[in-house]
């Protein structure tokens, strides 16, 4: 059945959809809400997807619009105040403080302007080609590239500058 195929493909993409949503929202609870709402929209609007095109890109676009709607509706996020908190599970692989750096990267992501974060989530977290990401966001490739470039420079400063930079951001 064609339906079943679509549903299964959707479910097989859930890990990536959750990663993408986590990078947008900054926490897993909101991420799972966005994924659930987005997937339900996708199922209802499955005719909007053209077979043969990338299903992941189509879903990222839906999730990203869902999150934008949520932000508008709830006005939840005063820019730069979100702090991620996570269980600190001791990890053998963390001998070099790698997990700490990555946690710092995730916090820094939440301090970027929404536009820049969206671009980074698509290009740098999900690894989509620039052209694909620009299409999802509905901007020219040049605009996307300058957003990504500014975002990556800022992110570097934020991560390197913690915790001093964190305080500046919260003013």
């Amino acid at each position: 059945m064609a339906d079943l195929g679509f549903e299964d493909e959707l479910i097989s993409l859930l890990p990536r959809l959750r990663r993408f949503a986590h990078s947008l929202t900054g926490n897993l609870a909101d991420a799972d809400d966005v994924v659930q709402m987005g997937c339900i929209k996708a199922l209802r609007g499955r005719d909007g997807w053209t077979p043969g095109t990338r299903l992941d890109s189509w879903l990222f676009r839906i999730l990203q619009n869902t999150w934008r709607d949520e932000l508008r509706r709830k006005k939840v996020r005063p820019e730069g105040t979100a702090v991620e908190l996570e269980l600190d599970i001791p990890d053998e692989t963390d001998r070099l403080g790698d997990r700490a750096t990555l946690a710092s990267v995730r916090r820094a992501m939440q301090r970027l302007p929404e536009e820049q974060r969206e671009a980074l989530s698509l290009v740098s977290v999900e690894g989509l080609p620039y052209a694909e990401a620009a299409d999802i966001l509905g901007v020219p490739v040049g605009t996307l590239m300058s957003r990504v470039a500014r975002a990556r420079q800022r992110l570097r400063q934020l991560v390197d500058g913690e915790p001093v930079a964190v305080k500046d951001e919260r003013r």
Partner: protein
Amino acid sequence: MTTLSDEILLAYADDELPPAERAAVERRLAYDAEARDRLQAFTTTGQWLARAYDDTLRAPPPPALVEAIRAHAGGAGQAAGAPVPRPRWRLPGWLLAGPAFGGLGVAAGVALMVVLQPPSVEGGREATLLDATLETAASGETRAAEIAGERFEITPVGTVRVAGGGICREFTEIRDAGEAVTHGIACRAEAGDWRQVARIDLSAGSGEAPGFALASGDPQAVFDALLDSLGTSEILTPDAERALLEAGWH
């Protein structure tokens, strides 16, 4: 080429340049240290971001999420227009698991570090004061008691409803006329039984309070994040809180 633009360096770092341009950039980079520095920021951040959410990628999706999608895949038409149900998996299992608190650590990375406090065994009367205060006092009201020659003052500062309908309250505890100040969150397990989810010792240099370490950072931000991680669905207004208090939190 006068200088390599940030966009070109970014595209080079992300392997988005056609081979001819790539080669031209490489020739330039060989003698342009300033460009190499700028490139470094793009390369490093690219590597970070590619791995920053690996834990989420590797975690199995919550069964409730998969079920919700399967449920809608079947009868997509009939459910159209119905409100999207809030997922119910937000409240971590350990929150209500009592003894499982022990040993759980919560970290917000390098800058902020809070260690969750297992419910204290010896602080029985202090726990009773906390239970009584959280059960009956409105936010802003202080309850005090003298325990083993020490004066304790506990003031609830806010109340939230978390996913699944549970109630959690943030409180401040002042001990011995300000000698020790702690800030905590407790969630109501049942009538008169509030379980501490987290505490932070705010009195600098106090080695007294066991199990807490606030390396640095802003405690309020930690608590906001902790409340968020509990799946806070609603911050109660004073009126809503009063109504619930009077109804015995039901």
